[in-house]
């Protein structure tokens, strides 16, 4: 099972705005070319301008979404991607349909119709997405938290009570655990007063979940308490990361009859 993170209408609108800017830049470049062509033939240059505007304004989305697998420049910038709503491969006709239906979605101005439909739709689809059976998702970048730098080398008083640690792991939701981790990773971004207040609130929240004996928590600052919590949530003691096999070798090991 997997889920996709839907892009909201505001992010999508910003991506469209960037794309419109790109189209404007392209048209400026074409305009310069038209000026050169006008020296040879004014009529031809005008015709060239009309065709270029038509092709670029309609073809921009189709071209980029097809060649960049569901992304335009704006979408790339905001890490958005058009995908098939059923998780299948995005097909050319889907891209064409969703882009042609911009004619209706952009009515009466600034994608009002598309924005309203997107806002109301469960999958955040505008009319073009509904017709093409596509959705726009957020495309995250993998990040590897440096837990060693954050947590290693410190005595953790909570580990003296493994039964309570196990209960804490059981009761903490993934979102709560991530909250602690993110707060610690981003501690430098907070104002000192706000940081103290935030860590105080978070520590209070986790203290309410599991009450450790006073020996384990007395004299431990809120921030250190949260580090200890993150440590027991994210790290298993006494294990070091192995050097990874090459995948091909691993496959050969797993499936000796393959090939």
């Amino acid at each position, binding site marked *: 099972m*997997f889920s996709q993170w839907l892009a909201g209408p505001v992010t999508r609108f910003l991506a469209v705005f960037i794309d419109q800017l790109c189209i404007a830049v392209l048209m400026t470049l074409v305009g310069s070319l038209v000026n050169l062509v006008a020296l040879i033939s004014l009529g031809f240059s*005008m015709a060239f301008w009309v065709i270029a505007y038509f092709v670029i304004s309609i073809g921009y989305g189709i071209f980029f979404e097809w060649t960049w697998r569901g992304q335009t420049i704006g979408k790339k910038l905001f890490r958005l991607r058009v995908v098939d709503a059923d998780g299948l*491969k995005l097909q050319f*006709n889907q891209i064409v349909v969703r882009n042609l239906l911009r*004619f209706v979605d952009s009515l009466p101005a600034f994608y009002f119709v598309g924005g309203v439909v997107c806002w109301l739709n469960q999958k955040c689809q505008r009319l073009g997405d*509904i017709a093409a059976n596509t959705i726009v*998702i957020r495309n*995250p970048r993998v990040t590897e938290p440096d837990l060693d730098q954050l947590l290693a080398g410190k005595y953790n008083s909570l580990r003296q009570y493994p039964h309570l640690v196990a209960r804490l792991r059981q009761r903490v939701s993934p979102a709560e655990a991530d909250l602690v981790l993110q707060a610690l990773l981003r501690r430098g971004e907070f104002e000192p007063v706000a940081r103290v207040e935030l860590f105080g609130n978070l520590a209070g929240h986790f203290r309410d979940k599991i009450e450790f004996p006073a020996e384990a928590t007395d004299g431990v600052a809120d921030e250190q308490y949260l580090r200890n919590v993150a440590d027991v949530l994210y790290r298993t003691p006494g294990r070091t990361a192995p050097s*990874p096999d090459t995948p091909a070798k691993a496959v050969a090991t797993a499936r000796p009859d393959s090939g």
Partner: protein
Amino acid sequence: MIVDLQRFIVSERPFWVQLETMLNRLEAEPNLRMTLTQTQLFHHLYERTAGDLAKITTFSSEPETRRYLENLVARAYGEIHETREKQRRFFPLKWFFHTLPQTFRRHAHAFYLSVAITLLGCAFGGFALALDPDARPVLMPFSHLLEDPAKRVAEEQTVTTDRLAGEKTTFSVELMTHNINISIFTLALGMTWGIGTLIMLFYNGVILGAVAVDYIRAGETKFLLGWLMPHGVVEIPAILIAGQAGLMLALALIGRGNRAPLGTRLREISHDVVTLIFGVGLLLVWAGFVEAFLSQYHEPIVPYEAKIALGCVELFLLVLFLAKSGSGGSKSEARDSTSDRQPPHPHWRDRWFKSPKP
């Protein structure tokens, strides 16, 4: 319970990277056929990554990695479970002479509806103008149509020079792009359950009917035919086909008599809609060319009989094309009509990759 996240990422990441690399290659090269070994590796990586996703979803709290894995698994899932016909190389002539007319015929009922609505509009426009000639500004709110027909004909027939000299190309291109925009708009309005498309078709019919009656009442039928037929016999059917595509969207949206989910219904017709709108674009390019280079020239420069004859020939060829082209292999037509709906249904490996020799 939460796994040792860093160790988990470090040990599994090479597999994810390899899967991502394979996916990038597959997506970049639609015609790529992997070997059996590559296929097995791909499948293994997909299963392993899916397993990692399950682990990280169940046992860990790290959302960024989970999102990344979900994205990878989703892409691999799309590659493996795609059952629609694989996109093949595009053959323009085959598309034009086979796919386009076959698609048109397959959805002829929507075209007939499109014609009926336009004819209704024509009848209304013509009747309204005949009943109340003062309603011309309302029925035909375009300055170039408001002039008295007899006066216009008299003026046109005194012109012996090329009024569009040096501007024909620009005029032609403007006509093409304008008409294509209108067609796309007519198609797109199909998503209003067809209401917008019907209004567009009806309104086009009203203008056409009003103009026709206006010129016929003024005794300028010959001029009217000579003026409209060379480009109109292609342009008007093109708009009607755009309406047909819009109505196809609307019918899929409404889903009367089709119990498939909305997504499936729309998926079934999206390929045909795209085929039709590209066909419309081609027809309108031709119509724009003829309108700028021929339709605007009248007697004594070009005899009306010649223009009408050209219009008749174009109409005959268009009807022949839409009715007969590509119908030689009725079996292939039937097969094409179901290619998107009923995939050949081999196992995904059979579709993608050559069977290993024993």
